[in-house]
């Protein structure tokens, strides 16, 4: 019980308090940097757990001959090939500044097998996934931007103005306006909306989140929130 509940709690509280205080005291400011390094190393070590989960899921799908187990085999093969090629830095020339050290080259150099995987598999795939958003934005705009109430009207009118104001169409449509009304030209209007209303909304959200983060952090540091502690159920 103590090892499962009390010790983790104490670790969290002490670590959190030290972190918070180190921001104010110069002599222990290094702790903030050190903690970041520690986190990154732990996260890198934790990859082993993630890989274990991935391997287990795919191996069991293959051994059970689940529907689509062939895809599990593809995942597994892709994973293992990339891992071996990258970990061993296969085909990577050493750095020209240090050719005596066999592994001094960067594994990401273009033209190496690992660089090939990055350039021709990973990079186009992630970019294309991201590009799907252009399509989803269009279907969401068609379906969701309907003037059902005041709030929805404001949402869609603003989106409308900004969409027009951010291209040459806005310039063409409202270029006829006289100089004294230039503030109403679409390109200026969209900047103005962003600078005033957007700033206000974003500031409020930021302030709210800062308070939310502070409250959440304090609950953890005061030992009030234990829900993230697993294993033994809630307090």
């Amino acid at each position: 019980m103590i090892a499962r509940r009390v010790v983790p709690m104490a670790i969290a509280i002490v670590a959190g308090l030290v972190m918070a205080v180190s921001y104010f005291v110069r002599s222990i400011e290094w702790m903030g940097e050190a903690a970041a390094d520690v986190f990154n190393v732990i996260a890198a070590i934790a990859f082993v757990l993630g890989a274990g989960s991935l391997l287990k899921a795919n191996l069991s799908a293959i051994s059970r001959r689940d529907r689509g187990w062939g895809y599990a085999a593809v995942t597994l093969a892709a994973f293992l090939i990339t891992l071996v090629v990258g970990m061993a830095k296969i085909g990577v020339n050493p750095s020209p500044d240090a050719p005596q050290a066999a592994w001094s080259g960067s594994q990401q150099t273009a033209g190496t097998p690992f660089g090939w995987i990055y350039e021709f598999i990973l990079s186009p795939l992630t970019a294309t996934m991201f590009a799907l958003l252009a399509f989803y934005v269009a279907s969401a705009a068609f379906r969701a931007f309907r003037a059902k109430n005041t709030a929805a009207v404001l949402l869609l009118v603003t989106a409308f103005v900004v969409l027009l104001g951010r291209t040459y169409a806005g310039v063409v449509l409202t270029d006829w306006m006289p100089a004294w009304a230039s503030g109403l030209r679409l390109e200026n209007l969209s900047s103005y909306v962003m600078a005033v209303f957007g700033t206000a909304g974003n500031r409020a959200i930021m302030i709210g989140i800062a308070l939310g983060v502070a409250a959440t952090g304090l609950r953890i540091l005061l030992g009030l929130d234990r829900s993230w502690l697993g294993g033994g159920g809630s307090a």
Partner: protein
Amino acid sequence: MHEERIALAAWMLGIALATIIFVMRSRRGKPPVIRRIAALEAVDDAVGRATEMGRPVLFVPGIMDMDDIQTVAGVTMLGRVARTAAEYDAVVQVPTSRSLVMEAARDAVQAACLTAGRPEAYQADRIHYVSDEQFAYVAHVTGAMIRERPAACFLMGSFYGESLILAETGNSVGAIQIAGTGESSQLPFFVAACDYTLIGEEFFVASAGGPAGLGAVAGCREDLRDDVHRGGHGAGHGGRALARAGVALRVA
């Protein structure tokens, strides 16, 4: 000592003090009243619907690691959803984008199943790591959405560009979607494509315990924990009062 940070220290002490005062008050039986948050009340309905339809619940805890406090809040929310799901006997699938989040989520779900009195409902394999790469993770989750057709999708944590891909795909399979994030750049998409959205601070308040609605789900038990949670939320409240005061001072 950083002299220029003394003002910040004062703020932090003020917020901490406000938290402690609210906690003490609620321990003495005066919990602050918290307004209804529609998105929170929809959680049970969504999980119940999944049970009725015999389809799974999908929980996405964002794409960042445990060093982002939104992820911590998302995992806390996962605990609540998992507890409801364990009671209703619904399946919760949690693909994660980080190994550490997978570990934390497993802990949270296991704890939730224990609390719900159904430890056997916990199956570690349903919480699995996919990939640290944002869009590889998204490719997997959207594919899984199309194939397994979850009845409810919870998107709670730190989201970036992928928010709309997930929300639109969930919408296309007819899932009830409840989102929560503090990433203000992604809120417009969640607001447009999801049924309910916890906006910014609402998300943290919800993860902190929120209205009694969820306490009731937990077995109509107005236990100390919920009260304390709400007390903790008082920090937000007190902090805002302080912010107001600060604003007023500057005006003066």
